[in-house]
């Protein structure tokens, strides 16, 4: 669903704004074929060459265009990390990197097609806004907003989404409790978190934009316990949370995808259960912590 939204929104942006460009490395090339036929100079498929994909994006940005770059997360981020660091960041150039696959959407493809570490890798670099939309409508809004500036933006699309969209990118309270415990759900983790915390006296907060994290919004909740549920490497946001709450006595728990490779296939739901990120697993971890 998010992938279709990405194709439709980016195809529209290419038609509306002559600054927009799209660089592909074969992934989703068929879906963008109508756009490529209309804008052959701005829809560029470099073949299975991910280093070149991001290098080209850096060059396009240096001439004033606004490049969107797209592939599976492991190829766009893990494989071409130095291109993100040097061909964009070091050049003081921007791009919009839009990925699919994420942590285990490609569950049956195996670890080669998975990138639980993408957000952690981007956290080593300067100036990246990281969006993890929880709904296709949120993704459309983010992709459109990214066309209006030249910064570095990462949009991590997911195959699963929440029942309802939450517009905006600030931290939102979804359910308010009376204890000081706050469960912060990132992107598509919201629905599993809502199910997991049913009947517990906790506040459930939501963000689709973990970088920069809306730390003011978190502090305003006066948390004494913070539980982060993020759909990528567990602990990715621990640094940001620790800095935000440096002067506030608190305990914290960081839930996410394990660093240990899961050598199994099945569905994304199977992987979520394996990592304790389904409603049952989350409930177990949260109750144990509280």
């Amino acid at each position, binding site marked *: 669903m998010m992938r279709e939204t990405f194709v439709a929104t980016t195809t529209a942006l290419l038609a509306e704004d002559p600054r927009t460009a799209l*660089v592909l490395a074969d992934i989703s090339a068929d879906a963008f074929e109508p756009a490529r036929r209309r804008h052959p100079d*701005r829809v560029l498929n470099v073949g299975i*060459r991910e280093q070149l994909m*991001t290098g080209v994006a850096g060059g396009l940005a*240096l001439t004033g265009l606004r490049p969107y770059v797209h592939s599976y997360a492991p190829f766009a981020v893990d494989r071409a990390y*130095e291109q993100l660091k*040097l*061909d964009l960041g070091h*050049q003081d150039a921007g791009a919009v990197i839009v990925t699919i696959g994420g942590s285990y959407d490609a569950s049956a493809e195996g670890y080669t097609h998975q990138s639980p570490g993408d957000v952690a890798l981007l956290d080593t670099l300067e100036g990246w806004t990281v969006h993890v939309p929880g709904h296709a409508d949120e993704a459309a809004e983010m992709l459109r907003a990214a066309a209006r500036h030249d910064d570095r933006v990462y949009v991590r699309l997911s195959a699963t989404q929440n029942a309802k969209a939450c517009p905006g990118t600030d931290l939102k309270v979804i359910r308010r409790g009376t204890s000081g415990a706050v469960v912060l759900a990132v992107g598509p983790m919201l629905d599993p978190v809502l199910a997991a915390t049913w009947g517990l006296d906790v506040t459930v907060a939501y963000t689709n934009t973990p970088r920069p994290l809306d730390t003011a919004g978190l502090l305003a909740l006066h948390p004494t316990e913070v539980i982060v549920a993020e759909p990528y490497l567990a602990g990715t946001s621990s640094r940001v949370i620790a800095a935000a709450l440096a002067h506030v006595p608190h305990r914290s728990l960081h839930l996410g995808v394990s660093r240990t490779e899961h050598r199994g296939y099945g569905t994304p739901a199977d992987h979520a259960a394996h990592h304790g990120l389904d409603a049952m697993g989350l409930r177990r971890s949260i109750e144990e912590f509280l």
Partner: protein
Amino acid sequence: MARITADRKHAPSAYSTLDVLQVLYDRVLRISPETVDAPDRDRFLLSKGHGPAAYYAVLAAKGYFPAEWLDDIGGRGSPLGHHPDRVLVPGVEVGTGSLGHGLGLATGVALGLRAQGYVGTRTFVLLGDAELDEGSNHEAIAYLAAVGLPVTAIVIDNQSATHGWPGGIAVRFPGWQVSHVDGRDHDDIAAALRERPDRPHVVIARVEPKGQ
């Protein structure tokens, strides 16, 4: 060049590029300190960011920045490092140092210029023969040939690649127009760089082998 003493580590690579850079800035590139931000200026990307002393010397001689800057390459507070940074140095199009990034960036620059209708603007990129060891170059070499984009790549060949390039450098550029020049002969270099084929063009500039 005589002012530049700090960058001893990269001395052979610094001097290997000097004549090509002089020809580019004297006789080929449509760019000046006044047009350094003009959208239709010619682009020169130094991919081989190692040993930028000759590059800095030429830019200073052309007035992109004060010649006094050359006295403190690599110093604290100096805009000139042992690898060039486009954010710090006027006239530098890309920050390089890690090898194998310039050709991909140049591909994007040429595509961006074409998409905006700057058809008269040329894109040049300079690499070293040892730099071709990096696989990322070969992604760009194959793609540029496939789409027939007229980028001009200059390979300075001072035979510095550890395992060499048996069969020569030219055969690594299938589908490209190839010119061989004497990397110390200004007329030879200028004639090759002024050619404007409608496909990518590699100019292989042979200089004395590294270490001799």
